[in-house]
């Protein structure tokens, strides 16, 4: 099986098509930035983009990817290697505590900003409600989404 991840075609060999995308990424491709938290679509630690939508990769069979474009945290940086505005906002605002949920949070925020570049507080809250932060960094996540949105607006 072949899937397109972070702009590259990757060969998954004779992988069991029911394998969740999460484990294909982590075990077969060594893309470990995407995390396992619950395995039942509850926590969002495993969030990736499939085309432009945030998807819980723990509950998304690798066979469902088809021709779609998968983006993980490893594929988010700019082509020159700089962090993208969402990642940069996360670093600058020092969002992370343990950091385990944060790649999923960033992917959820990226998905939000791709469809709604200027979200209200309420829209941010609703969009990010899919992702749990056990350490409780929600206040900074909210600020970071806003900061990223304003940087994106300024660069346009």
């Amino acid at each position, binding site marked *: 099986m072949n899937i397109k991840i972070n702009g590259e075609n990757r060969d998954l060999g004779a992988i069991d098509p029911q394998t969740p995308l999460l484990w294909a990424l982590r075990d077969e491709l060594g893309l*470990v930035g995407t995390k396992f938290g619950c395995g*039942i679509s509850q926590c969002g630690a495993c969030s990736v983009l499939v085309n432009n939508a945030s998807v819980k990769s723990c509950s998304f069979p690798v066979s469902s990817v088809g021709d779609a474009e998968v983006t993980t945290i490893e594929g988010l940086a700019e082509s020159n290697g700089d962090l993208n505005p969402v990642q940069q906002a996360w670093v*600058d605002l020092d969002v*992370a505590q*343990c*950091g385990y949920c944060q790649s999923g949070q960033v992917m959820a925020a990226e998905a939000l900003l791709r469809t709604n570049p200027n979200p209200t507080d309420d829209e941010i809250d609703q969009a990010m409600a899919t992702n749990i932060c056990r350490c409780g960094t*929600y206040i900074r996540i909210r600020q970071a989404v806003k900061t990223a949105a304003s940087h994106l607006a300024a660069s346009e």
Partner: protein
Amino acid sequence: MTTLNYDDIADVVDTVTAGREDAIATSSRIRIVKLDRRQFLKMTGAVGGGLMLSFSAPKALSASSSDAFQPNGYVKINSAGIVLYAKNPEIGQGVKTSLPMIIAEELDAAWEDVSVEQSRIDQAAYGMQFAGGSTAIPMNWDALRRAGATARAMLVEAAAKRWNVSTDSLTTERSHVIHASSGKRAAYLDLASEAASLPVPSADSVSLKDAKNFQILGKRITGVDNEGLMRGEPLFGIDQNVPGMKYAVYQKCDSIGGSVVSANLDEIKTMNGVLDAFVLDGNGNAGELLPGVAIVADNTWSAIQAKRALKIEWDESDASKDSWSNAMQEAERLRHESGPRVVDTGDVDKAFDDSTKQVSGFYRYAFASHAQLEPENCTASFKDGQLELWAPTQTPGAAIMSAAKVVGIQPNGVTLHQTRCGGGFGRRLYNDFTCEAAAIAKRAGMPVKLQWTREDDMAYDLYRAGGFHQMHGSVDEGGKITGWRDRFITFTNDGNRPVSGGGISPNVFPGGLLENVRVEQTALEWKNRCAAWRAPGSNVFAFVVGSFLHELAHIASRDHLDVLLEVLGEARQLGPRGMHTGRAANVVKLAAEKAGWGRELGDGRGMGIAFYYSHAGHIAEVADVSVTADKKVDVHKVTVAADVGPIVNLSGAENQVQGSVIDGLSTMFNLAVSFENGRVQQNNFDRYSLLRMPSAPEVEVHFVESDYPPTGLGEPAFPPLAPAVYNAIFEASGHRARTMPISEEGYSLA
């Protein structure tokens, strides 16, 4: 080497948790009740032993290795740069950044010039290396300052030699030594090889900076791993990958204590991707290795699929039959009976007799799971009698000891690599998962990464114990609190003393502050293990005492703030590691002032306040909430005032406080695990609802920067949140909730 076994860990956590030595000392003044037979097993009055901790400074190492200036285990400088070593596990409390900041300050390095690496485990060089009890800052503050200052003194000495001037004529600034009168400057990097040849001065002899000259401490410094996290680098335990590694899972009995009779191993071994499946008998220590079935596979998914297909016959004759509903029934009976007294000061009976008004309340809190977001995992390789572990543990030293025991080698045959931990909250003080990984790697004859599922994690946690408090109190004519009685019903795992975090101590607030106080303690026997959970003990006692103080203020028709300040009384230090009532009153007043205490809020809205002292931190919190008729609670804002001494990293400190408030809210609203027939009834996040972003309130944080010794912030801001919110809900609605989580009384977060 300072090492800890499983049982000692609970003592360490209790002991380093300021003022809780007495909880250990008095833990044997207790009545033990067996749930199924409803009888007293024992009642004793003997005093148990405490545990001494060594707060030792690290030994100086030789000044140099071949190519680098390395005056101690914390600093390495060569022409490539300045490396500072972070000694303790990073579990989200920020020590991988904050501890090196302390070194860099006294080294007088520019923070941008520094890179940070996780240190090796070497307790001879570093003293105790663990994450627990908010102790990293207080235990290491002085040693780290001296480690940095030692390196700085040697670099100055090297420059003095090179320029043939006196050390007094030299200053340092941003990773350079400067000779002002000649205008000479030398970078630390260039002086490193000369400094490496000098003798290392004794750490006690070096001088330390005056706090007013701090350049790094107290500033906002972003986490050293932030960028790595954003690039998906393999920082966590779960991310480790070693040559030849396979993927393992381990199935234990759903009810703790069950052992394997038989399993469909032959069938499992034929499954796609499965390499091996076998039974491990366990070693009789629930903290190390319990019986179960291990599966080793080519990838995690195959292993999980095979685990689901397991058919195991268990012998449950020794297994847990714990039942939360039985415990509740028993507590309901016991709350009417007196028990052995842990505390009995003044004359409580007389205080009640002489009082003007009295009030009673029966408080209850459920068990809770740690739910650190990274499920337990460990990578292990056993080769030629040597064990190598990559482990997200809070207690690497103990992990080495117990894993060595499990695979039958000496501890010096174990190498443990510290990884970042995806949350800890106390769960990773215990090393059952590292022992399992070691045993599976040895038996399978190949390196494995053992992965627990969330279901494993919740079924085999060491829970925050539930508990019950029948409270009774009185006030006199002037509205002053006169009598306080807490009839406490807790749990015991060993049949002798309360579980860690479940033992009350005489100085639990407001002990030591009121004249007539009685605390009685009874423990129910319980098989499912309970242990330290963020701010052990304080995380539940604060809820009870902080709420009941408000109940007393209410029957006295007085403002809660006035009563709180009256209870604290004049400024004084209560015992060597107890609270300082002046610092307490300061934060109480500050939180009230910043929150606008006393202003008109309108119907259905109210403010509550609470103070708690734990982990050497004095913290007051004010919650501002609205409550609807159908018990929907909107928490508008939480205002926190904290005195934890000097702040090390302002960004990290503020993050810890905000996170503690949100964790506190999450826990008080929704988090409960219950047990029936020994089995946990909530095994994943669909039934254990952690707070999500829409419910996160605004949190305003104020620090009082005092000159007292610094303490950590991983825990002390957690306890006051629940009582502040319960009290606010009462003010808003007139209803006194006494159950945690409060969802069990029908409340929910808007």
